[in-house]
């Protein structure tokens, strides 16, 4: 079984989707501990994340890795009996595409990369009204809020969201990062965010810097 688990990690990390899902199925059928199996998936995802950070993998690999993780997760999770909801996380991040903007590819990739780096991510979706961010911050008390937007209209929507967070008295304890096709230093200053990122690795680095392990 030791060899097979190593093989599984390697297959996922090397993008061998069909083989990886088949092997995971065989291992579970043979009685392999589903919790341990998901641990191997996490190990593989860390390798995928490292390869992405190193410029070896790009968006298509992240997308496929996400699909493999979901397929294996769907097989393993129903077999898990113990409660794992109390598992320790690296921190909580609330993320969403700001009001008026319907784009979600960038946000989804950032969510995926944060999750495989151990963060609990509350994804509020697209076209998110300011009040949803406020309610979610009150409920989940995140360390970081990520505002995403592809269109230039997002600059104002980000600014309004950040102003509203401030007006609600919630700004002090959280860090806010913005991301999307056209953000830069000027937009960061304009919106009042703490930082901007151009890709998913920037988001992970910022969260790790702001939420020390």
């Amino acid at each position, binding site marked *: 079984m030791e060899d097979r688990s190593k093989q599984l990690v390697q297959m996922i990390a090397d993008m061998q989707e069909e083989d990886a899902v088949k092997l995971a199925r065989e291992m579970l059928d043979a009685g392999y501990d589903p919790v341990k199996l998901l641990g191997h998936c996490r190990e593989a995802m860390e390798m995928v994340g490292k390869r992405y950070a190193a410029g070896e993998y790009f968006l298509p690999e992240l997308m496929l890795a996400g699909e493999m993780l979901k397929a294996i997760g769907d097989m393993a999770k129903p077999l898990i009996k113990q409660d794992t909801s109390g598992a320790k996380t690296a921190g909580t991040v609330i993320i969403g595409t700001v009001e008026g903007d319907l*784009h979600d590819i960038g946000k989804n990739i950032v969510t995926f990369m944060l999750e495989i780096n151990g963060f609990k991510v509350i994804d509020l979706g697209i076209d998110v009204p300011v009040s949803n961010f406020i309610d979610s911050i009150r409920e989940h008390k995140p360390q970081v809020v990520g505002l995403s937007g592809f269109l230039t209209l997002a600059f104002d929507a980000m600014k309004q969201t950040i102003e509203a967070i401030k007006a609600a008295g919630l700004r002090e304890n959280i860090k806010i990062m913005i991301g999307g096709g056209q953000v830069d230093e000027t937009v960061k200053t304009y919106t009042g965010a703490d930082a901007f990122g151009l890709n998913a690795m920037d988001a992970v680095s910022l969260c790790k810097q702001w939420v020390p392990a």
Partner: protein
Amino acid sequence: MDAIELREPDRLPTILFSHFWVALYSGMTFRQAMYDYEGLAAAMLKAMVDLEPDGYQPVHAAVAFGPTMDILDYKQLEWPGHKGLAEDVPFQYLDAQYMAPEEYEDYVRDPTGFMLHKYMPRVAGAFEPLSQLPYYPGVLHTRIIQSMESYARPEVRRALETMIKAGEEMQKMRAIQSRLIQELKDLGFPSTAHATSHAPFDVAADYLRGSKGAMLDLFRNKDRLLHLLDRLTVLIPPTAIESAKAAGGNMIFVPLHWGLDGFMSPKQFTTFFWPQFQKVLLTLIEAGLHPHVLWEGDCTSRLDLIKDVPPGKCVYFFERTDMFKAKEALRGKVCIRGNVPASMLIAGTPNEVREHCKKLFDTVGDGGGFILDASVGVPDEAKPENVLAMFQCAKECVY
């Protein structure tokens, strides 16, 4: 033309490319810009007279299709005031799977049949009955005569009537657009976009498989995808060539979405994107056309590859690519266009804009082959004084 053919013009040339900014500049809303053809024409005329660019991209073709979309019950876009979207936002494309993976062969075997029977019914309610039309390759001789029956079916008849109504609406828009193009021509402003074209991978990813499907297909359906891309290299150019001919011009706008750094690996780019797109560019150039290729995002790492096109024929319009590196790589090959940042035009000051434009002229403008523009055209929310500063500055940049 001097800039495109890599000679020094008299001064730094500019092109006005805007979706909604010209409308907002005249006090219109996003929704009005999509619905009020005359109002948009007046707004465009005002912007042109105020800014005096050397060329422009017709704005009606970019935004004025609200009424036609209503008639068709169009589903690939959300637009201001339609369904859940507010009135003060631009229209947005809905990324989704419009062709299933098992339909690759259907498309490759008979693209027109696939578009008519499968694709169009998925993108607009009005087209749904088109799925009942005959498959003509197998309909011959007296069967052609008999096939007329399908056109008289109540639902097909309704679809055809709706399409005629949509066509009439589009003719109304086109008539006003043509009148504006003539008025601007009389004032000395030539259009610099006579038709639009695409990269094969963008067609596959944006319009057929959806972004998620296309990315997964690089692994799951690699051979099918490559076969489709090959077919698209042949299928894409005739549309642009015919449209440019009908418009009486030779400038083709080619917006790209998937070519940028970070989306694909260099190996994926040289397998799935560049070779097929290069073929499309060469076909357009052979037909006597000048492609203005909008390389969205940052494409700095692609420069060495994409310089391989005939000199003095293309314009590469860059969004975030390093213009200084682009100039080095493309000098003597390709005219470059861009790229005053959207953030500067929205949140900066006229002085910052002027300084940036001057810096671009002094470095990237060296020897000609450079057209000043915003990063993906003038952003909708740009401050008027910043846009005026950009176009005014170009007039002061004399060779």
